[in-house]
């Protein structure tokens, strides 16, 4: 129970109805047939099946949704979207849930959320992704020395091949700054 109260506090900023409303609209005509679950390559690792997750969205069970790791386990293979007999944009609905977790920086999903945000910040700074810089910042943000160790052997192989460089990227104009600002402004208005 204490756990739920903590989560409630974390996601307190989610005014449940408003934040889930666009997603509820996307999947409103779900008939709970389970084709999405049967098509999902990551279902074996999920705590709730995709079908059940959609039911939870329709029932507005916000806490359970953000307590579960189902939506961050979506790898965007689009099998469910392709096969859904109602033609619902299920992969997009999964992304919309990820967007809420990223926007609210929910600690439960910090690995995924930090991965996405470090990537995006690198793009904002340079216009293109600098893989070494982005991964270095990701590791720094996670504050867990075991995670960089997991990547070290691959990092060394890639460096030996000259595919990534540890040199800091050359300072350059920020070609995407104005786009990022306009997007932020537009999303605030929405």
């Amino acid at each position, binding site marked *: 129970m204490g756990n739920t109260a903590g989560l409630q506090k974390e996601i307190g900023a989610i005014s449940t109805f408003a934040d889930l409303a666009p997603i509820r609209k996307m999947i409103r005509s779900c008939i709970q047939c389970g084709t999405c679950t049967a098509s999902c*390559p*990551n279902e*074996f*690792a999920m705590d709730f099946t995709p079908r059940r997750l959609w039911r939870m969205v329709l029932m507005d069970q916000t806490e359970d949704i953000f307590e579960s790791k189902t939506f*961050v*386990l979506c*790898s*965007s*293979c*689009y*099998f469910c*979207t*392709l096969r859904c007999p109602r033609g619902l944009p299920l*992969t997009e609905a999964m*992304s*919309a849930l*990820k*967007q809420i977790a*990223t*926007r609210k920086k929910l600690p439960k999903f910090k*690995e*995924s959320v930090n*991965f*996405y*945000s470090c*990537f*995006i910040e690198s*793009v904002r700074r340079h*216009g*293109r*992704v600098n*893989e070494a810089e982005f991964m270095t910042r990701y590791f720094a943000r996670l504050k867990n020395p075991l995670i960089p160790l*997991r*990547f070290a052997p*691959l990092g060394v*192989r*890639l460096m030996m*091949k000259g*595919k*990534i460089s540890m040199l800091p990227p050359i300072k350059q104009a920020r*070609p*995407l700054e*104005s*786009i*990022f600002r*306009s*997007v932020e402004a*537009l*999303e605030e208005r929405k």
Partner: protein
Amino acid sequence: MKYQYYPGCSLEGTALEYNVSTRALMESMGVELLEIKDWTCCGASAADSASYFLSLALPARNLAIAEKTEDVTDILVPCSACYLNLKKVEEKTKNNPELLGELNSILGPDQLELKGRMHVRHLLDVITTDLGPDTIHKYLKRELTGLKIAPYYGCQCLRPYPVFDDPELPRSMEPLITAVGAQIHPWNMGGKCCGASHVNTKPDVGLELVGGILQDAKGADAIITICPMCQMNLEAYQKKISRKQNINLSMTILYLPQLIGFALGLSQQQLRLDLNLSITDSFRKKLT
């Protein structure tokens, strides 16, 4: 034949050999590629997990720049993730003037305007639809007889927009493989998911998917890919998964243009086979 060219970030770093071999293959078949000027990141899979409008605005910027080159309306994209991000903007703005207006309000301050004239094409689409096995035959220098190839398509060039192949049971690479004289490894994993960025954020899940693909490829001489993320997932973790599953899963992983390019007489150096992370000794012997 002329296309605008969007290489994408991976092709300048971890997938350099995909860039080099795509350019070399296209040149050897008389295709001209015009790189989009000052292109920027398409948002990869990260933008879509952070912000809906950002995930459309980033690719839209590149399409708007490409539209300035008026006489060439097809953009060739080798990376499946970049392809889908750019394609999404093409598809979503088609009958949605409101969205087009919103994207243009984002691009406006940079003096860019998207009209929706560009046609986004995956490298595999261009090779199968516009060039085809006949063109490959015309330029063929060495037959790759004795090689058994497992074609791996991954997800995002097939779904959610089925453009040039069956999104459930893709087969478009098969005539290309037989055109270079190689055999097809029959398998069911061609259109299955490699786990994408799960390998980074949820390795147990990601490596499970990669392991399934490598196991089903047993008996083939190589898997060929058409996406930098699929390529990296399939080639970089073979030892780790082999140890975990106590089975030897080492397998050569090549990009499609490296395989076709070799048959068209390009050298291993021209195709940068030295940059691949997994080419087995027995495969190298078969190439010489």
